[in-house]
Every structure is written in C-alpha cells, then in structure tokens.
C-alpha cells in the first residue's frame, strides 16, 4: 500500500540551497482506513507508517524506487494524531546516495514539536 494519497498528502516543499536540506510539508488524511483500525476512536499514526512515509518522501527526492534494508535508529517521541496536529514537516538533514544505497536522516516535526527522528538505509530496487 502506497501511503501517499491514502494516509497523507504532500502540500509543500522547502529547499535550503546553501545547506542542501530538503523538507516536505504533509497533511495527514484523517479519514484513512489505517486511522480507523489504529486505533478505533483514537487515531494514532503507526510507527511503521512514519518509517514508510520517510522512505516514500526519500523516493520522491531521489526519483528512484527504494526498499528499506536497515533502521539504524528511529525514535518516536510523541504520538502523531491526524486531528489537531496541523501540517507536519519531514525535514531531511541528510540524503546520501552511493552505488544504489541511500543513507538518510529525517526529523518529523510540527509547530514547536518533534514527533520522530529516523536514521535509515535504503536500497534502490532497479
């Protein structure tokens, strides 16, 4: 299941040319079937889906299909619920491509809140 369109929509993109940092602004879809199941009456974004959102946004940046092969470290600091969270920023501190392998670091935040920090390694599928 591709989560873009089903769990979130990209509504903006920021690039800081000097540092090379890229950030995607997303909005969570509160009517997603995932929120109805996780958890009924108390929607929370599953940690699994936060990981997949980071991978999908990295795919968009790299313009390649990727598959996750390692989570070096992922911290989920606060529950990310669709209602009231407002727009969420996925800020990439690092995206490094080397012979089909992509190492990345991403921070997921909102207004004055950090929801998650992830450091992942993906592999290009073709």
């Amino acid at each position, binding site marked *: 299941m591709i989560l873009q369109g089903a769990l979130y929509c990209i509504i903006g993109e920021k690039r800081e040319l000097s540092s090379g940092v890229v950030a995607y602004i997303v909005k969570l879809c509160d009517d997603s079937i995932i929120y109805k199941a996780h958890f009924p009456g108390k929607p929370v974004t599953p940690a699994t889906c936060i990981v997949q959102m980071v991978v999908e946004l990295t795919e968009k940046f790299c313009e390649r299909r990727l598959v996750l092969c390692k989570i070096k470290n992922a*911290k989920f*600091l606060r*529950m990310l619920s669709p209602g009231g969270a407002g727009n969420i920023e996925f800020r990439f501190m690092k995206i490094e491509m080397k012979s089909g392998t992509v190492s990345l670091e991403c921070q997921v935040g909102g207004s004055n809140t950090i929801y998650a920090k992830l450091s992942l390694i993906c592999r290009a599928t073709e």
Partner: protein
Amino acid sequence: MDTITIISATENPHRPTAAFLNSIDIHGLLPQKEPFIMIDALTGYDDRQTSTVFKVRRDNIFFEEGALTYSGLIENIAQTCAARIGYMNKYILRKDVRPGVVGAIQNLEILSFPRIGEVLDTTVTVEAEISGMIMIGAVVECNGKRIVTARVKMAVPNGEEGGTK
C-alpha cells in the same frame, strides 16, 4: 467482538499450554483492528519470550509484488510485542488491553522478504523492563531462516502522551 476464553483450573497463565494459546483469538489481545492486523496467533509465552505466527496473504495491505513489504515486517514485530502486553494485561494482571506504543527501533535489519503463502515465526525476548518501558530483542524467521532482527523499545502509556525520549 471480543471472545471469552475460559482458563481451566489447571491452566497457569505464566506458562500456558499450546492448546490454550491456540484457543485465544488474537483480536482480543490487540487494540488494532482489521485490516491492520499483522499476526495470526500466539504460539509461545513465558516470563521472557513471546512468539507469534503470521501467514503472508495477497489481501494484506502491506503485500506488494508477491511479497510482504518492509512495513508489514516492522508491524509484525510491533504487534508481537503488543500481543505480549495484551496477554499480560488480560490473563495475568486481569486488566483491560491497553495499546503499547513503539518508542524506538534500533538496528533493524531486513535480510529477505517473505513471499505469498510463507509463514513468519516471530519471537520477541524481553531484555529489560523499567517503569512502563520494555526493551525487546526481536527475530523474525521464515522457513527456519532469520529474515529480520531488531531491537525495540515499547511504552505502555498511562495518559495521553506516550513514547520515549
């Protein structure tokens, strides 16, 4: 609908028999609902370990191109941890099932992706337990081969906020 499982007088919930584990409907241990269920049944429970099985099916929301995706594998580990918390609450502490929350995942490595019809055997081992936080080592096997290993921190929140710093 929750199902009621009757524990016989001889059943010790700390060391359940295979028959007893087999009689438990997994939906009664997890706060998640379909289609976001990534384990089929409990196969082992003791003071340190919990094991589950899960068959890869075409109608799974994390099934793509003939195999379970990385998201399905991560969620399978998270729900094996959640099933442990659910079992403990329901059969040992006799409380309501409360959602466990993933606080952190470290060194998760995926070696291969299970294909349709293959069965995952997932075991989580409690390495430490400190004030509502459980540190877990997880191994997913398929056809006797290790396909995923990880370390996971789970929190059982009391109030509105969960997670770990």
